[in-house]
């Protein structure tokens, strides 16, 4: 530990143990706490009349989205702009990727234009790790296939901490399409590192084999899971990843909604105030009915709001580790 600061304003300082944010798996609990503390500061900034600080004004960030996204891309772009970074956006449709350019070539071409950080979403698991080994920029994984979506895991845990006042010892149920969900994996790692208990609930066809080895409880019955938990994260059914005709893993959306959807009647049967979360975009009437999605105990919009502060914190802390030119 440092000594108390001398000659006034030198705040305590720490740094992340990683150079890239590839997944929650590589972070330490201290890293996560540092990100949360920094996000607290940015959350206050976002409440000001002028929501902008100059910290990253000398950096350029490229947002590379090889897979469609609205929320995450807008959230990252806002975070970057509020840190005063210069931002370039790239999405794979209408680019030279469709002409057969490789990932490394695409990215190196963009880096040749002097980009310092890359925020990337890609349909293939491991794409962010692969990139971090082959290019010089700092990489932030904004979702790689069915692997991880670290900033979502962070903002979910941060939102739980904000609503419940703690994460340690809290019981969190993650419900739905675990098999295709990068959100689930990042959530499991993040919550466990912070000392929460995690239960997964969903049809067996959407539950990865051997997932219990991660130290999570697995439950097939939604009502049992709801009675057990303090907060429930209702994942989206990933229609685009179900393969074949779109519904290879369960008979119909209607049957899924009956067994694993949360409506107001089922919510009232729990008999306690369970916090409701959803990473978005919601299939209204499938995972959640509108009454539950817009319920007072739903923190879905808090999750979106916290997303910007969390992403600002991640970019700020990673940028701090970029050496300055000529130093």
């Amino acid at each position, binding site marked *: 530990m*440092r*000594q*108390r*600061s*001398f*000659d*006034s*304003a*030198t*705040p*305590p*300082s*720490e*740094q992340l143990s990683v150079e890239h944010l590839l997944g929650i798996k590589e972070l330490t609990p201290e890293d996560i706490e*540092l990100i949360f*503390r*920094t996000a*607290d*500061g*940015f959350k*206050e*900034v976002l409440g*000001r*009349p*002028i*929501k*902008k*600080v*100059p*910290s990253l004004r000398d950096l350029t960030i490229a947002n590379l989205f090889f897979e469609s996204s609205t929320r995450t891309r807008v959230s990252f772009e806002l975070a970057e702009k509020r*840190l005063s970074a210069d931002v370039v956006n790239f999405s794979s449709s209408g680019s030279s990727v469709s002409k057969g350019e490789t990932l490394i070539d695409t990215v190196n071409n963009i880096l040749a234009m002097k980009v310092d950080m890359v925020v990337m979403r890609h349909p293939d698991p491991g794409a962010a790790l692969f990139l971090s080994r082959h290019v010089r920029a700092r990489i932030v994984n904004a979702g790689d296939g069915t692997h991880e979506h670290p900033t979502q895991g962070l903002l979910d845990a941060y939102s739980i901490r904000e609503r419940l006042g703690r994460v340690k010892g809290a019981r969190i149920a993650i419900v739905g399409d675990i098999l295709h969900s990068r959100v689930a994996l990042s959530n499991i790692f993040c919550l466990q590192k912070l000392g929460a208990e995690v239960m997964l609930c969903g049809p067996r066809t959407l539950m990865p084999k051997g997932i219990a080895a991660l130290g999570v409880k697995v439950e097939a019955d939604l009502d049992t899971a709801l009675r057990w938990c303090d907060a429930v994260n209702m994942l989206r059914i990933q229609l685009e990843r179900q393969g074949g005709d779109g519904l290879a893993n369960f008979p119909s959306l209607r049957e899924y909604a009956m067994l694993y959807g949360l409506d107001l009647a089922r919510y009232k049967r729990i008999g306690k105030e369970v916090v409701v979360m959803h990473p978005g975009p919601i299939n209204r009437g499938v995972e959640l009915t509108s009454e539950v999605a817009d319920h007072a105990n739903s923190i879905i919009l808090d999750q979106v709001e916290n997303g910007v502060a969390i992403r600002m914190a991640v970019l*700020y*802390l990673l*940028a*701090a580790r*970029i*050496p*300055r030119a000529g*130093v």
Partner: protein
Amino acid sequence: MEPLTLLGPKALGLTIQRLCHQLIEDHGDLQGVALIGLQPRGVLLARRLRRELKAILGVERLAYGELDITFHRDDFRHRSSPPTPSATAIDFDLEGRTVVLVDDVLYTGRSIRAGLDALLAFGRPASVHLLVLIDRRFSRELPIQPDYAGKWVDSIGEQRVTVEWRESDGQDRVLLHTAGDRRDTGMVAKGSTADQ
């Protein structure tokens, strides 16, 4: 080497009293004034000033806020690790007010520059004055001077001034440390980071 005591508890109390009376002399009952302490150490002085001013003036309300300048510092990425933010708490508009910015030690002037920058997010004050407890003269790196100063200290770069408070450190005093204990000079070398 033992640090030199620049101000003991009694002298520090008198100095704070004097600063309060100087503020009252210039600004009357302080109703158009907002006292803003800089995080993390300036707020300890600002809280003390607020308490004394309320007692002297016999008023209940005095516009008071705390400002964190972490994200406005100009040494981001010049340090080995990023500074961790403290809380900003300004729940009123600064538009048209007279702001008295409060910090404990004025050294290079860079914190104050960042503070002026950070203030802009809360409106356009009519004017901004600077109050510091200790003014380390002749070591400024920017053209910034205090309007109110408790004590002037002529010190060299390797020396350090610390202000300790009863509330957080056990007793009120201002100390001058001279080289000898150089374990963390990496942190304060040339007054570039820790000494701001």
